[in-house]
């Protein structure tokens, strides 16, 4: 039943020509029913032709919009194409496509409106990262769990699936710069059901993380404020599903 639904796989990519081809082929083998659209966020290298050669549809932005603007482009395409679900997976191949189904499942069955793949729920060896990174993730997990009353472990994860109603909301408004934690609060404000499923993440194969060490503190302050400001925003009159 879930196979008949229209799924858009959004792959935001910035200068990932080394890994994007392999990633697209992997996604295709794990999720052949999905439409893959690579959002080329102003790459300077051959990301677009590499992705096209691997069989993905490629939307190239005229200049770099950042991850938020890139992902929102995907939501706009999903909203226009009347897709049932959109799943976002990073173009740096950090997210393992074999978990695509697991992330999509709760959204396709209607259990959740926003399903996040968490690297901290997974069994087996844990996720290795720098101390500050882990501290930041923990901090946002606590903050968002408190605000949304949903137990969250990995609010910064960009491996997530979104249902139809949220797709249309996110096509209208999606946070910029470092959107993942804020998007959770926005979704919750709109009355969406949010949850997590365990996934494993790999070491980055290429590209560089958009969050560099010195910027971590700035992002933490910025995103915290953005989340708190979002709680002040107007709630919709109607509940989502």
């Amino acid at each position: 039943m879930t196979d008949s639904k229209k799924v858009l796989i959004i792959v935001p990519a910035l200068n990932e020509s080394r890994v994007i081809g392999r990633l697209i082929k992997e996604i295709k083998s794990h999720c052949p029913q999905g439409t893959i659209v690579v959002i080329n966020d102003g790459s300077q290298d051959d990301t677009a032709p590499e992705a096209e050669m691997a069989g993905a549809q490629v939307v190239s932005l005229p200049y770099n919009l950042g991850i938020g603007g890139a992902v929102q482009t995907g939501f706009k395409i999903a909203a226009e194409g009347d897709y049932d679900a959109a799943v976002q997976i990073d173009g740096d191949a950090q997210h393992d496509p074999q978990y695509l189904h697991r992330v999509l499942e709760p959204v396709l069955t209607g259990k959740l409106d926003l399903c996040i793949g968490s690297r901290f729920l997974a069994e087996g060896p844990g996720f290795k990262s720098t101390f500050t990174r882990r501290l930041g993730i923990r901090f946002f997990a606590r903050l968002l769990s408190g605000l949304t009353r949903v137990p969250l472990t990995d609010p910064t994860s960009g491996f997530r699936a979104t249902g139809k109603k949220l797709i249309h909301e996110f096509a209208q408004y999606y946070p910029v710069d470092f959107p993942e934690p804020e998007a959770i609060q926005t979704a919750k404000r709109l009355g969406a059901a949010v949850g997590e499923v365990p996934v494993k993440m790999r070491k980055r194969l290429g590209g560089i993380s958009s969050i560099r060490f010195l910027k971590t503190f700035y992002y933490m302050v910025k995103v915290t404020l953005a989340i708190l400001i979002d709680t002040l925003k107007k709630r919709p009159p109607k509940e989502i599903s």
Partner: protein
Amino acid sequence: MNAKTFAIIVAFLIVGFIVDLIRRQKMTFKYSLFWLSASALTLLFAFCDRMLSRLASLAGFELTSNFIFFLYLAFVSLLCLFLTVYINEQNSRTESLAQNLGILQFKIKELEKELERKR
């Protein structure tokens, strides 16, 4: 030259400059209205300095000059705030334009491919 004459000359220069900008269509009506009223106020205060000092003492300022500085700062701060909102609006518009441009280019490419296949 006394301060009043100087203030009047400067006020007239400002008004003249703004009118010239509007004449050369460097400013749209929305913003010209804002600047015209600001310059009208400057002219009014330049001529009626007694009214200005009465207003200053009414607001609790001992020195009229302090009142002028206060008005000026409040004006500039407000202007900054408006410009921030304006920049923000432009920002989200260009972002939206960039996204839609990307999507349109993609659609054109797809259509071209389809045409090629049909030929």
